[in-house]
């Protein structure tokens, strides 16, 4: 990734302080299930939260460490299948299986990264694509374990939580399930935010911009790239575990390479390399096709067009567009002053 691509993203993205943004996010998450009462939109809310998780995980690998990972669907699938199989075959409790699922996806990400450690750019893109094809084919062909294309059925939602003095919280209820997934999405966002703002974030950015210079400064580029891959794919694993328990069925085709491209589109359209961009990208590309549902198969045409046009005309994505817009408004009314 060249430095010009990212230079546009370097400006301040938040005018409000982070505390206010966090409060606003919590309030919005709390209110959404009340605004959307029917099961169709509740489902979309949960899918949206899952997509946010996938997008911020991929963004950590692609936007911060600069590693083009086209195999994100594989880590999503590993998280989903590992956690579900542990519950079904070994009778593990959900939360234990959830943790193992995350770990398995993270380890798979690190393994691919170690394997592909000498590779950059295009070679890594193809290697990760190949990895996703292998994982999908294993899910299809290992029938004794995964039931192959027939899929796994009757996966239960996470167990109820009974706190003393409060009504039992059941995740069969879509509002509660949304709170759970969105809560975790927010938690992961804050963790990645913390990482990105720490010296680790600067180290990753240095590697992304110029690996040779970074290593001449004594940075162990290999270790940090493996680290970024591990973190990003672990987050995808968490999304996978939630996906299985929410949908209730698992088929390998939920994790084909097209899914990787969809997540990639969310990251790019939102604004790769900024923290909030992929969140907006995930929300836009989940909600917009549902709004346009009357137009039939336009959903993926929209993904393709958005991805192409954004790369051609607005490589910083929605975040860059918002900045440009804000700068224009600021210029036309100088009296308000900028929040810099």
């Amino acid at each position, binding site marked *: *990734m*060249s430095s*010009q*691509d990212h230079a546009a993203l370097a400006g301040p993205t938040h005018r409000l302080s982070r505390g206010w943004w966090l409060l606003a996010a919590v309030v919005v998450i709390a209110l959404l299930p009340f605004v959307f009462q029917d099961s169709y939109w509740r489902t979309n809310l949960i899918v949206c939260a899952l997509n946010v998780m996938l997008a911020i995980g991929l963004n950590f690998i692609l936007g911060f460490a600069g590693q*083009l990972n086209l195999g994100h669907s594989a880590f999503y699938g590993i998280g989903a299948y590992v956690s579900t199989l542990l519950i079904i075959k070994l009778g593990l409790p959900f939360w234990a299986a959830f943790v193992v699922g995350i770990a398995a996806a993270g380890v798979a990400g690190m393994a691919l990264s170690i*394997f*592909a450690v*000498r*590779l*950059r*750019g*295009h*070679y890594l*893109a*193809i*290697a990760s*694509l*190949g*990895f996703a*094809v*292998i994982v999908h*084919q*294993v899910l*299809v*062909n290992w029938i004794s374990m995964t039931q192959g294309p027939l899929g796994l059925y009757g996966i239960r939602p996470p167990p109820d939580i009974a706190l003393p003095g409060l009504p039992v919280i059941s995740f069969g209820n879509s509002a509660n399930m949304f709170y759970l997934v969105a809560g975790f999405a927010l938690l992961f966002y804050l963790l990645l935010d913390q990482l990105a703002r720490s010296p680790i974030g600067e180290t990753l950015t240095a590697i992304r911009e110029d690996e040779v210079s970074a290593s001449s400064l004594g940075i162990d580029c290999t270790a940090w790239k493996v680290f970024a891959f591990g973190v990003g794919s672990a987050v995808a694993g968490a999304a996978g575990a939630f996906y299985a328990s929410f949908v209730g069925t698992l088929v390998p085709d939920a994790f084909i*390479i*097209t899914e990787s*491209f969809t997540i*990639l*589109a969310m990251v*790019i359209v939102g604004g790769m390399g900024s923290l909030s961009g992929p969140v907006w990208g995930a929300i836009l590309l989940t909600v917009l096709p549902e709004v346009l549902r009357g137009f*039939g*198969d336009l*959903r*993926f*045409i929209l*993904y*393709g*067009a*958005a*991805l*192409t*046009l*954004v*790369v*051609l005309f607005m*490589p910083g994505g929605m975040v860059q567009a918002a900045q440009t817009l804000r700068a224009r408004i600021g210029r036309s009314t100088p009296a308000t002053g900028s929040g810099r």
Partner: protein
Amino acid sequence: MSSVLLQQTINGIVFGSLYVLVALGLTLIYGVLVQINFAHADVVTIGAFAAYFFTFTLGGNYLASIAVALVVGAALGWLVNATIFAPLRERGSELLPLIATIGVSILLQNAMLLWFGPIPYPFDSPYSNEVIRLGGGTFITWQNLIIIIVSTLTIALLYAFMKFTFMGKALRAVAQDRETAGLMGINPSQLIMVTFVIASALAGMGGAMLGPILVLTPFAGTSVIVKAFAIVIIGGFGNVEGTIIAGLLVGLIESYATQLVNPGLIDIIVFTLLLLMLAFRPTGLIAEKREENV
């Protein structure tokens, strides 16, 4: 048993030569531009559809439809270069064009889905049922013979072009050393355009011949292109000879795996080979001086 193996060898060479046609385009583009074109898959698919409609809707000759697909592919290649790669070239990014062509690919596949629908088209080449017996129980269909002859001729022509014409020499010069080639007065924009047109023409005609083999849906090209990527890497990015050997190798592996193990394992075998190559010999089967991206 040996006749079965011989039969699978013939089939493998047929598959392999088609993979070579598709993969050569990717490798040529990589050679001059150091870029990956994901929309190459859809050039294959559109080539197959062009041949299908020419043969069955317009009632044309199947052999002529290969030429039609070639022209359609060439036009698409010109378009993809003019709209995506040329505008992004000044920005000098390694990954943005790749991401943009993923977008183009999603767009084209789903536009085709809208027009052609998800149901596979029955692309029966009139030559698929005519069989030449080779003795010992082995045989080859006319269709497969056409595939082998057309591919071999095309690859030979491409070779002659690269060896003997100025454009071809310029192409190899740029692939070897971009800056020095620029100093020698080679116009890169024109050269890149010609490369895209040739590469996509190969993919288009490959599609016309793959049509009767594949399940012809808007997503047909994707299954070919992921293998073509594997072939390009196994052969060494930008290396024409390596790509030809690797393409035939993958075709043979696919054919033997179908017979001896389980067709479901083909992709796993091919991509495990790809990952092993990347780990232990990232320059490809035939080592070259190109080390910059490894």
